[in-house]
């Protein structure tokens, strides 16, 4: 009997058992699609976030309060005993000289209100050089000026989603917004930027750091960002900043270059990807168990089928080739459909979450699902094919 005949037998058998065939394929499809999709999300988010930091330029140095290396990759917040103030930023500015730009930054949550529309956002505050570090692309209006920083003016710049939500139909420039109960004037709004180091930039509002301090009732600032004039100099700038802060803070501060920050964030986001991959792995396992179940449940019927085929003259090779071809066709078809679904799904999701298809995830998911499908399709058949025909016929 030739291979084409084996294919025809396998096709006939698949066609005669459509429900079983479809359920088996479904297991493979779900496993493959889930892995591709979840890993695509993990990778996509990681790429986008690190990309947005890289986009800021390679000449940035970040000073954080607290000893991040000791408190671990969890970042600031663990063992902060002393916060930075504006004076610290001014000191760094004076000591570094005129070529380097220093921006004290505050980040805090706030409630915005316009009329009866209300939303929770993040306030990101800096000085007049903020535009150098927060890459801002103005749709309309302007950034705040030095005078407004000095005077702690109540001016605010809206992120794109804040604008869409609070001023859906009108131009916000010159309008007033209620921030934590205080009245602010909108002086500009910026284009959509996507996610970033500091979270979703579109869901932020920007204001002078002094205004933010007054609004929040604090003299602290969150971090200090320094932009070196020459990217070559970041390491020397980092060393200088460390020397400047050391007398005041001892070991309770951390200074990172952009590259180091990227490394820390990559680790963090890598953990996220691993976690998503873990969830995907569980779907793969569940899909695999589903395939196994269907294959094992149908063993008794199939064992009788094998008995019948052997009684009328099928050789061991005939039986095995039929079952191998059946299992391979189901698994490969399911795998291909799963890949297509995962692909289409990632494309559809990319309007909401950044996604990127990873070849190893595709390969792993496909090989695992197909492997499970083929093994549980072939192994019981292999055992049945070795029985005496009468034992296979009697199998209950």
């Amino acid at each position, binding site marked *: 009997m030739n291979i084409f*005949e084996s294919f025809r037998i396998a096709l006939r058998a698949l066609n*005669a058992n459509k429900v079983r065939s479809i359920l088996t394929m479904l297991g493979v499809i779900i496993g493959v699609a889930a892995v591709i999709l979840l890993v695509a999300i993990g990778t996509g988010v990681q790429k986008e976030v690190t990309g947005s930091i890289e986009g800021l330029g390679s000449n940035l140095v970040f000073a954080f309060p607290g000893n991040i290396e000791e408190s671990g990759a969890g970042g600031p917040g663990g063992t902060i005993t002393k916060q930075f103030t504006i004076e610290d930023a001014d000191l760094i500015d004076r000591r570094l000289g005129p070529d380097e730009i220093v921006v004290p930054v505050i980040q805090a949550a706030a409630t915005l209100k316009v009329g009866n529309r209300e939303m929770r956002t993040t306030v990101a505050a800096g000085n007049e050089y903020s535009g150098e570090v927060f890459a801002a692309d103005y749709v309309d209006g302007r950034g705040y000026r030095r005078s407004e920083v000095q005077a702690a003016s109540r001016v605010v710049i809206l992120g794109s989603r804040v604008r869409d939500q609070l001023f859906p139909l009108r131009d916000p420039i010159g309008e007033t917004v209620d921030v934590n109960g205080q009245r602010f004037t909108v002086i500009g709004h910026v284009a959509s930027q996507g996610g970033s180091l500091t979270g979703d930039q579109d869901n932020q509002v920007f204001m002078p750091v002094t205004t933010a301090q007054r609004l929040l009732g604090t003299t602290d600032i969150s971090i200090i960002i320094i932009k070196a004039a020459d990217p070559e100099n970041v390491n020397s700038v980092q060393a200088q900043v460390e020397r400047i802060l050391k007398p005041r803070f001892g070991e309770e501060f951390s200074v990172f270059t952009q590259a180091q920050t990227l490394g820390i964030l990559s680790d963090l986001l890598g953990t996220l990807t691993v976690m998503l991959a873990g969830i995907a792995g569980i779907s793969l396992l569940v899909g695999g168990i589903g395939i196994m179940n269907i294959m094992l449940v149908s063993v008794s019927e199939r064992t009788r089928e094998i008995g*019948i*085929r052997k*009684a009328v*003259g*099928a*050789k061991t090779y005939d039986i095995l080739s039929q079952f191998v071809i059946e299992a391979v066709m189901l698994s490969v078809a399911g795998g291909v459909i799963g890949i297509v679904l995962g692909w289409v799904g990632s494309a559809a999701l990319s309007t909401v979450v950044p996604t990127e298809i990873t070849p190893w995830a595709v390969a792993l998911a496909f090989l695992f699902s197909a492997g499970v499908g083929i093994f549980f399709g072939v192994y019981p058949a292999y055992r049945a094919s070795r029985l005496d025909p*009468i034992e296979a*016929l009697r199998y209950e």
Partner: protein
Amino acid sequence: MVENNDSVAAMCLDARVVLEARDVSKCYTLDEIEVHALRGVDLQICEGQMLSIMGPSGSGKSTLMHIIGLLDHPSNGSVTVEGEDVSDMEPNELAAVRNQRIGFVFQAFNLLARTSAQANVELPLIYSGLGGAERARKAREALERVGLGDRLGHLPSQLSGGQQQRVAIARALVTEPSIVLADEPTGNLDSRSGMEVMQILQDLNDQGITVVLVTHDPLVAKHARRVVHLADGRIVEEEIVKERYIARDRLAALSTEEAHR
């Protein structure tokens, strides 16, 4: 071989021995208890014969049929098909012998589910390596022979029990085997369908095909010319049927009876 042929002459007169069992025993363990299904059975089946193997349940008659049909192997003794000893054959060689020389009819039909009558009948021909067109033609012919020429595309679930058994008979004879083995072929059928099946088997025998019936039912057994009685794994009696039942006559009688009612 020479000695073998002598004994053939003794038993079968002029006819050839199609199938021979020599001192066949079968012993297996069931729940740690040794069961002797067969204890030294000698049996010769001659070409053109219609033979019944009869016995109560547990007498070993099905086991004997499975062994002479090469579906099972004996614990002891040998089986010869058309003069060829099959005792030492590989499973694949046995498959080829079953495929070319033996046809089976089972009590439970054993058709492939969700597969058309025609495809079921084609099955043995696929494994004998016949081309598609030839296969289809032979399967159609076989189904026509059992009166199912108009049911080629029907699935087993769309056929009555009697029709399913006739599909199974068509599958058994499509390879033009030397012998057809039928294990309780009427066991799952009503009496009319049973008679129809017996009629087909008798017709086949009249056309020269050797038929072996395995049954516990004396009525069915009497359709054969020769009956071998089995009890506790041994042949206890052999008889030549004196008043053989002819299924065609009994069917006709049944129809008249129904017409009068």
